[in-house]
């Protein structure tokens, strides 16, 4: 439908980033950002009128299936890389063909993550969300840079919060070099003794942390954020996509830092790609305008402007990333092309686990038993490896 000015309405289905939050105002912050983005885009692309609908991540596939079957599917779908791949596999989106010129605008690691087995692209990466440490500057002058410093700070009455699921804890695996054992298990290879030992060490750290009074493990990110915003915690692991909520509450007192490193190495935070995919039902004009918009979104200007404006994601355009990295908060600025490659192993592991709900549930239960019950780190490590090998 075109309006008087000849602009075209593009329906956009957006998977929510606030997935763990089951409350009445679940999408409040996202709606605000989306509305703002709509306004911004109107100035730059007067011919396109975006109409975004936010869906809970878990129900996106089902909703898109019903709509696409009816010819009422969206023109664009915004999801993370895993979901974009699964939507393409289900036939709910069309693969995207990017010219070489356009591909050069996007960092190769990000493109790799949306590539299917046959080489087609499930969507176009537009931004990436990082895992960071968020802290209250009033209570904590400086975020701990190492796990040791974290442990010491918790001894001085500062409360640290983490989430018990593997995706949110994965950053700490890097500090122990424990990711190798998981990668080997997942690919069915034999885990070396050294790698197994490092996994045990990570689990020992988890267990030891759970015994500490001031290190608190909660079951989801929403509960963690709530506790942080209410002042019950002074440091939490957080996602860049969720920063607007925290900024709104803590204003200038919100501190952002990279996650702490360990004796073995630096933390390996997970990144989540924001991928824009093409819906199946668009008319010819809607498709053409969608492709125009996709092109616009990866140009350095748009990448730079939106990254700096919303400060929730890191650009996928390497040129834009260079420009903005100095202006973004510390947690972001440390992120780079090289970093992207370094953490990609974690992304692969997490996405592989995400794709198998039973495996995900099994791993979660092992971690819960380790942290909250009496399961020993040694047993937990073996159990985790077995679960990942079985891939069930």
């Amino acid at each position, binding site marked *: *439908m*075109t309006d008087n000015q000849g602009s*075209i*309405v*593009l*329906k956009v*289905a957006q998977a929510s980033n606030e997935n763990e939050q089951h409350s*009445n*105002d*679940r*999408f*409040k912050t996202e*709606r605000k950002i989306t509305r703002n983005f709509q306004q911004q885009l109107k100035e730059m692309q007067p011919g396109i009128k975006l*109409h975004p*609908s*936010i*869906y*809970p991540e878990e*129900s996106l596939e089902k*909703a898109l299936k*019903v*709509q*696409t*079957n*009816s*010819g*009422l599917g969206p023109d664009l779908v915004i999801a993370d890389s895993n979901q974009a791949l699964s939507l393409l596999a289900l036939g709910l989106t069309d693969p995207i063909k990017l010219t070489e010129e356009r591909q050069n605008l996007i960092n190769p690691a990000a493109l790799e993550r949306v590539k299917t087995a046959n080489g087609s692209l499930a969507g176009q990466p537009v931004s990436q969300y990082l895992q960071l440490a968020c802290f209250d500057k009033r209570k904590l002058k400086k975020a701990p840079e190492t796990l040791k410093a974290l442990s010491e700070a918790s001894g001085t009455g500062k409360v640290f919060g983490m989430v018990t699921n593997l995706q949110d804890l994965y950053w700490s695996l890097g500090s122990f070099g424990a990711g190798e054992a998981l990668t080997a298990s997942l690919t069915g290879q034999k885990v070396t003794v050294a790698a197994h030992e490092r996994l045990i060490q990570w689990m020992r750290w988890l267990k030891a942390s759970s015994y500490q009074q001031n290190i608190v493990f909660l079951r989801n990110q929403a509960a963690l954020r709530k506790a942080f915003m209410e002042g019950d915690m002074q440091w939490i692991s957080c996602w860049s996509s969720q920063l607007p909520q925290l900024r709104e509450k803590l204003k200038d007192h919100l501190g952002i830092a990279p996650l702490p490193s360990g004796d073995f190495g630096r933390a390996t935070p997970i990144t989540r790609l924001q991928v824009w995919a093409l819906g199946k*039902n*668009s*008319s010819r*004009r*809607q498709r053409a305008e969608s492709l125009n918009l996709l092109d616009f979104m990866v140009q350095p200007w748009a990448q730079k402007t939106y990254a700096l404006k919303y400060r929730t994601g890191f650009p996928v355009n390497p040129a834009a990333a260079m420009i903005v990295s100095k202006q973004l908060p510390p947690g972001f600025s440390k992120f780079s092309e090289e970093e992207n490659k370094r953490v990609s192993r974690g992304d692969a592991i997490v996405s592989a686990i995400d794709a198998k709900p039973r495996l995900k549930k099994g791993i979660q239960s092992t971690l819960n038993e380790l942290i909250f019950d009496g399961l020993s780190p040694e047993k937990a490590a073996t159990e985790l490896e077995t679960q990942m090998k079985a891939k069930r």
Partner: protein
Amino acid sequence: MTLSMSYLITINPGAIFNELLSWLAYLNRGTVLLQLFLVGIVMVAEQRGALRRRVEHRLVPEYIRVLIGPLLLLISSGLFLLVGLPWGLLRYFGLLWLGWMSFTPLKTLILSINKKFPVDELESTFLRPVYIIVAIMSFIRLMGSTENLSQTPIAILFGVELTLGRIYLAIIAVYVIMTLSSRPATFLAWLSGVLFGVRPRNRRGLELLFRYSVIIIGIIGVAYFIGIDGTAFIAIAGGLSVGIGFGIKEIISNFISSIWLLFEGSVRPGEILMINGDPCTVRKLGLRATQLRRGRDGAELLIPNQIFFTQEATSFTATETSRRDSVVVGAAYEHDPDIIVELLKTIAKEHKKVLEYPPVNAFVIDFADSSINYKVLFWVSNPLEAFEVGSDIRRTIWKQFEKKGITIPFPQRQVYPMEWPPSLQQSLHSTGGGGVVPQGIQPELTGSDEKPHGEA
């Protein structure tokens, strides 16, 4: 407390218009247009009866033939699926239509199992509303994100942001409370009857009271659910007090009267009241008016509750239900009043519906022009039967008097023509014989003459 209008309510339907406008974007797509076109064609054909005429067969009843249209849509959606075209809209409209048309066969089926089942009530209060709610939800799901739309703020009421979802849920909740409140109320009334020995007649009043309580508690609950808190209620109360003073005084007055009357127990369902001299049964005590049934002609009367509250009313059932009625009869002067009085008492006593206590009594009430008048007084247990009992007693009196040779005198009028000027014979007759009508005085053209019944 002063409140600005913007605090009370601000409506911003822009988001909904935007959403609705965005739905029009789908009309850009050929596959959507094709499906809608097909739906349109089938519906028009069905409307004109073209589909049903083709299957004109005595063995296929009407309620099966109306399913042809929706089934056609479902079949075509299957065909679309086979050729790889989007088919969901056809299926949606097909199912929606099929569901709507299935009410009649469903009702027929239920009635064939249980003839007394209140299917019409079930259909209008439950099936159709639920169907509409589900249809709306599934339509929105088809067009976009229900979660997204439900969180669209459209109004601010008492400083609380009302989203579309909350308003929708609130409307459903209020409907459910209004419709279903009678069930728990009936149960509570029954329970009070069992536990505290409340009489069945009083239970109906109690039931109504419980029902209002459930509705009020439910509506307050819904208000809290949508986020309107105590402060807002104070604001509502402030607004209402002004409203009550001006516009809705009568409504509130009637409502309060109904509550008061229920507590007082004077106008409960089942009560018998005299309205303008006619006994009427109270059928229902509503929020605004009381519904009564007039015994005389079965007319339904709707009388505002405050009438009962502010004006006097005669009740036959306030403390006890029995009513005294009387029959007046005249007997000729020649009969002994003692015999007549005894006879009247016996007649009344022998009627089945006349109560033994208070006893029947009969009195001589008047020495009238042509008869001695008697009145027999009797009591009946059901005030609505007094009229019928009176009639029975009058009939029995006539028969008994006839049998015993007791005459009921009554004035009789004889009409005969007169000549003018009157002949001498006529003049003599009209003056009672021998009388002379003075010259210049004209007698009436008609005359009357009263004679006792016995001489007639």
